[in-house]
């Protein structure tokens, strides 16, 4: 008989106090997290935060130094064999055999998962079809584009109908179009009822795919909650104003700053963008600022409010900028190379 551990109701993944040290480096330094069944948990953090170590522990590739992890009712340390039957892993680097064709890869994995030869073939063909790889089915995977490889990798993870799927930075290094393809596939898997633990360093990706977020930094959880909750934690909206006459930018900023409006945050003047940003908490403050500008005779070309981006959430929580601080869309398109370039501009507050 199979023994399954009971977890907190509805949790498909339950991690408590997970620790993994490599010498002085604390890759995981006491991580707690939960993934509710049928949901996507985004694990967000910069390079080196411990995301990959976490996934490797949860997929039985490495043993933690301390702590427990229960996935789909199986203990990672005590029941690794059973656990391997119910998980799927798509790593940062496509884990398919490059010398084999797409179909051969999927067939092999089907056979390793104890499908009959006929079932393995049928399953391979169905997944090739679903992931739009039928045309390329007979070509060796090394001839595939980055996006095709990643799709094949996802297909390979799906063969065994995993209950829990780990996606370790599934779009790192992909161009925007391919990234969108992968996102669509992940959304379909979730719609089909898969539980997903997704690691990413891209805010936009977490926002797109995850319903809940755990933010980790240097092996520790620094925040978690629903995406909207996390945003709310950081504060209210930001009011962004562009003057009709760019020359008045500084004067306008000074006018708002000096007015001493009740409860208003610090005014930031961005000369390059020709914008002033003011954090606001209430609608009344918005009205006051606009009224003030009108009273002083400033012309307003453009005005908008926006909710804090996840970059700002990260900054607010960890006190330092995430790597992709200048707009997550372009950063995710540029991939890891761009990410490391941003590293150098990292600001510690």
């Amino acid at each position, binding site marked *: 008989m*199979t023994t399954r551990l009971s*977890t907190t109701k509805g949790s498909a993944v339950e991690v408590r106090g997970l620790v993994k040290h490599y010498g002085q480096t604390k890759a995981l330094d006491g991580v707690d997290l939960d993934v509710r069944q049928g949901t996507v948990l985004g694990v967000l953090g910069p390079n080196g935060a411990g995301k990959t170590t976490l996934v490797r522990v949860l997929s039985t590739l490495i043993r933690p130094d301390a702590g427990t992890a229960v996935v789909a009712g199986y203990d990672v340390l005590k029941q690794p064999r059973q656990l391997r039957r119910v998980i799927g892993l798509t*790593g940062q680097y496509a884990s398919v055999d490059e010398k*084999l064709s797409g179909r051969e890869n999927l067939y092999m994995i089907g056979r390793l998962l104890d499908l009959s030869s006929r079932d393995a073939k049928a399953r391979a063909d169905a997944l090739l079809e679903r992931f739009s790889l039928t045309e390329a089915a007979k070509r060796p995977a090394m001839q595939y584009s980055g996006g095709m490889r990643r799709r094949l990798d996802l297909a390979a993870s799906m063969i065994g109908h995993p209950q829990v799927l780990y996606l370790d930075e599934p779009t790192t290094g992909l161009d925007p179009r391919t990234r969108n393809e992968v996102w669509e596939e992940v959304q379909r898997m979730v719609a089909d009822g898969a539980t997903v633990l997704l690691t990413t360093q891209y805010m936009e990706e977490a926002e797109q795919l995850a319903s809940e977020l755990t933010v980790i930094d240097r092996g520790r959880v620094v925040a978690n909650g629903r995406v909207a909750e996390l945003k709310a934690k950081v504060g209210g909206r930001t009011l962004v104003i562009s003057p009709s006459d760019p020359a008045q930018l500084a004067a306008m900023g000074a006018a708002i700053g000096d007015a001493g409006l009740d409860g208003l945050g610090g005014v930031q003047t961005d000369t390059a963008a020709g914008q002033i940003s003011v954090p606001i908490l209430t609608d009344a403050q918005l009205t006051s600022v606009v009224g003030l500008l009108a009273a002083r005779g400033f012309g307003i070309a453009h005005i908008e409010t926006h909710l804090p981006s996840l970059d700002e959430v990260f900054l607010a929580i960890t006190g330092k900028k995430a790597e992709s601080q200048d707009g997550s869309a372009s950063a995710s398109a540029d991939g890891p190379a761009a990410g490391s370039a941003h590293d150098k501009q990292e600001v510690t507050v």
Partner: protein
Amino acid sequence: MTTATATLDRPAQAAAAGEGRIGLRANLRHIGALSRRNLLQLKQDPESMFDALLMPVIFTLLFVYVFGGAVSGKGHQHDYVNYVVPGLMAMMGMNISQAVGTGINDDFKKGVMDRFRTMPIARSSVLIAKIVVELGRMMIATAILLVMGFALGLTIHTDVLHLLAAIGLSAVFGASLMWIFILLGLTMRTPQAVQGVAMLVLMPLQFGSSIFAKPTTMPGWLENFTKVNPLSNLADAARNLINGGPVAHSVWMTLAWAVGITVVTAPLAVARFRKKT
């Protein structure tokens, strides 16, 4: 621990697997699927068969025509054929098995190993599948070696059964060596390093043996070394199985070495494979 408090659907699949142990039939099927993968890799990368296809041709020609005259006298090269070809059978096994180390090292550079290790299969099956395919390559190399040998005048003084026994013995010994090379492949950082270390070990073992020349012509200390060198045992066994002569001692010694090497290195290799991150 609470029994059967499954909070998830679909426990049937997992429950059917008992405590997750992998049965013999499933294990064989996994080894089959993984061996198929290694064969498909060869098909995709035919150059990797060059060693098995060309080495026996080059070595027989080289040794028979370059050294054959020196050993057996000018014009008597064919006398050397019956001495060196059984020896080359021993050497061929060693050289082919070396490739398994570089192969496994290279595999770890790719994500596919991570996939295998997160799947419900015995971890040894990945390694055993490698050995199965390398044994196949070894058989091809041996067949070519024998064809070359016959073309150069090799004669079987015993019978086919003895010849097959010699081939089988080389395969058993070669398979045991593969565990050493797998261990090496899992330990060294790069395929180049694996090859470098393997060459350093292989060269003295191959030439400091009875494979190419009679140990009685060597200085005493080297003759003593050849006596404890398992490659000499294998070469002597193969030679006497083909040419006739006492075989018991050399065959038993070879088998003892093969078992000894496997018993020590196979568990180490599997443990290393399991732990490698």
